């Protein structure tokens, strides 16, 4: 008998490692399949924000009460969704982006805290408060973006940093505020800075090393946009070579925006990742004649290579800062007697789009808010039709522009209940007066060129929760709110919908009727994303962050002076009474039945 040779040992070793990896993947898959958890902000890859948990019901939610809470120590806009993986909850704060891990077996206790210490200068290039929309979990790692344009992966057990990759330059106005989406071994992240003359991109990083796998720009030549022979846009106006260059004045695409700061979703069957790009820069549209591709566009891409499969420009040559970054909720619906794989998108421009997610065809586009800027979407050409009288001009004040720049709905994500067939859309009702001004590009400073002043739309209420029926393309019910509903919504198997208001109320309403069922006053206005989970004790919990801010709440979180109607790009004017309704704050709340 001879001793095993080193080579044999090495083979044995790598076999063992493979087995261990497979085992960990299996437990992970089991973990991800458990509906009692919340491992990414949108809950599932289809971005439904629906949990089947049903201990809390429309009948008993009125007895819901505070289980525990925690002061996060950062009083800026708390837009993030908490995550729950196994017996741990993860919460990431606005700048300086502290990541907390809470031990759910001993409610309210911190297991560890990780501080990435982002560059303080980043705060100067964050257009709309220093927010983050949260982290994502996969394979033992918690991954999130820091305001100074880095992506970090932290070991979920120990809180130790595993890798940190710099993706953008704050000196050029790039920040990162979106929550990553993890698909297989790819972490998908995008940049913010559409008001700073940034060139937008979506980037894939390797989950385990943090190394850059691919980057798809939103503007520029086809090779930069990862448009190749497999690219098949549905409409003719989206077809042609290098449209990301030719639909702009010379060189303007290099500072043309199209950032990727919103939501992504993924269909494993079609193997397509869906997301949208933000507004073109500057806002002053006279400085950028052309369609300005691929800004305000929905893309479908292959996660492995980034290759674009189709694209649809929602708002060609955008005139109003209608970013195209809102969530795309992936559903299978019966439309006109046919089962269709669709993506539902309540867009900033005021229309709910139902798209065929295999091809990019628009099946319907129906207004869900008050719209004066456009007449609708031509379903033959696919183009949005603008109203001439509402086109902003240099040196001329155009009034009654609805929806205003934040759109009929901004980043705040909807939820979908398969039980009711309704999409719960949190949104706002704002109009604006706008005047074009000359914008000059100075790297790292705003590139906007527009004077705006916002105010409440018809009815006087500034916020709404609309329960939308995408099959019949109409609202089932609506709730009006005094301030924009800037929080996400959550739909549950107990037929309860949760959302928060900027005047400090966390609310539960009946998923079928909108009937108010329960409310709880928090320390500050709510603009976060509510979630629900099953705790280690087997009970259902509901969690949300309170802390007003974001673009809508900057008047409070950044202490703006609303005597100037143009403060916060004109948003402060519509929110003059918010300081009287809420102080700043930053607190995690967790609720349960008694």
């Amino acid at each position, binding site marked *: 008998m001879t001793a095993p040779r080193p080579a044999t040992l090495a083979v044995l070793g790598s076999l063992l490692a493979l087995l261990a990896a497979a085992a960990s993947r299996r437990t992970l898959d089991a973990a991800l399949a458990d509906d009692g958890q919340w491992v990414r902000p949108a809950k599932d890859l289809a971005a439904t924000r629906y949990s089947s948990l049903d201990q809390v019901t429309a009948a008993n939610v009125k007895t819901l009460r505070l289980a525990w809470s925690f002061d996060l120590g950062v009083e800026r806009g708390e837009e993030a969704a908490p995550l729950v993986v196994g017996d741990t909850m993860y919460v990431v704060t606005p700048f300086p982006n502290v990541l907390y891990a809470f031990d759910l077996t001993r409610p309210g206790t911190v297991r560890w805290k990780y501080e990435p210490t982002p560059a*303080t*200068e*980043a*705060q*100067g*290039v*964050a*257009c709309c408060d220093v927010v983050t929309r949260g982290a994502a979990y996969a394979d033992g790692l918690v991954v999130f973006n820091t305001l100074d344009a880095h992506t970090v992966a932290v070991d979920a057990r120990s809180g130790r940093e595993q890798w940190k990759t710099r993706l953008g330059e704050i000196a050029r106005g790039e920040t990162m505020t979106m929550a990553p989406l993890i698909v297989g071994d790819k972490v998908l992240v995008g940049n913010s800075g559409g*008001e700073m003359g940034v060139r937008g991109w979506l980037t894939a990083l390797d989950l385990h090393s943090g190394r850059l796998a691919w980057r798809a720009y939103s503007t520029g030549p086809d090779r930069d946009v990862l448009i190749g022979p497999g690219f098949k846009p549905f409409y003719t106006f989206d077809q042609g070579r290098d449209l990301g260059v030719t639909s702009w004045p010379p060189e303007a695409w290099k500072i043309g925006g199209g950032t990727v700061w919103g939501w992504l979703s993924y269909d494993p069957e079609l193997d397509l990742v869906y997301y949208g790009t933000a507004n073109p820069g500057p806002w002053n549209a006279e400085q950028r004649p052309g369609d300005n591709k691929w800004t305000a566009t929905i893309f479908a891409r292959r996660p492995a290579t980034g290759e674009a499969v189709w694209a649809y420009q929602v708002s060609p040559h955008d005139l109003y800062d209608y970013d195209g970054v809102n969530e795309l909720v992936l559903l299978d619906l019966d439309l006109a007697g046919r089962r269709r794989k669709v993506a539902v998108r309540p867009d900033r421009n005021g229309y709910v789009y139902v798209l065929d997610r295999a091809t990019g065809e628009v099946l319907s586009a129906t207004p869900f808010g008050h719209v004066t800027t456009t007449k609708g979407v031509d379903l033959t050409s696919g183009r949005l039709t603008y109203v001439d009288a509402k086109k902003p001009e240099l*040196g001329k*004040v155009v009034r009654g522009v609805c929806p205003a720049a934040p759109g009929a709905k901004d980043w705040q994500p909807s939820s979908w209940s398969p039980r009711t067939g309704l999409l719960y859309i949190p949104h706002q009702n704002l109009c604006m*007066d706008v*005047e074009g*001004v000359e914008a*000059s590009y*100075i790297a*790292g*400073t*705003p*590139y*906007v060129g527009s*004077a705006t*002043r916002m105010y409440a739309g018809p009815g006087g209420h500034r916020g709404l929760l609309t329960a939308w029926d995408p099959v019949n393309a109409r609202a089932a019910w609506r709730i009006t709110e005094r301030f924009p509903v800037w929080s996400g919504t959550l739909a549950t198997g107990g037929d309860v919908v949760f959302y928060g208001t900027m005047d400090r109320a966390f609310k539960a309403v009946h998923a079928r009727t909108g009937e108010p069922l329960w409310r709880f006053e928090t320390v500050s206005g709510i603009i976060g994303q509510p979630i629900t989970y099953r705790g280690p004790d087997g009970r259902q919990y509901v969690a949300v962050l309170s802390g007003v801010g974001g673009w809508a709440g*900057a008047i409070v979180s*950044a*202490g*703006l*002076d*609303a*005597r*100037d*109607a*143009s*403060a*916060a*790009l*004109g948003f*402060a*004017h519509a929110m003059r009474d918010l300081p009287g309704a809420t102080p700043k704050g930053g607190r995690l709340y967790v609720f349960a039945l008694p």
Partner: protein
Amino acid sequence: MRAAAVLGLLGALLVLTGCQREQRRFSEVAPASGRPDRLRASGFNPGDRQAPAEFRNPYERNAWAAAEGKRLYAAFNCIGCHANGGGGIGPPLMDPAWIYGGEPVEIYASIVEGRPNGMPAFGGRITDSQAWQLVTYVQSMSGLLRKDVRPSRSDHMSVRPSEQSGTSERRKPPQ
């Protein structure tokens, strides 16, 4: 005799300050000695030390400089971060609260040297005269300048009360 001399001097002073309001300065030569050598972020003086001599804005009484400052405020994108004084990314400049101080020298330092939480350093990009013109305009936003020096109404959509009506609870405008 002495009384006459004093009167004469006073008269000359009046004429001088009166003219300064309308005086246009096209020279790019720094009107003062440029960057003050001691910038302070606090009014405390440990050990009873003397506070350094106050550094004055050479344009304090110059309405033309304030108007120039207003133009530069838009041209250098201050407006993108501070809006028309109400703030956005950067703090409001029309209110009486200051993070780094509302003395001319402190405003000058904020603009030229930048501030750590996101105020870019404009030193090197703008001339010293332009910096002081911006200081003059920033002072006018919160009513820190004499009323006749503040810029008049904007040509654009009116989004804020004119600088003419600005008041500051914290400091009285120089007499």
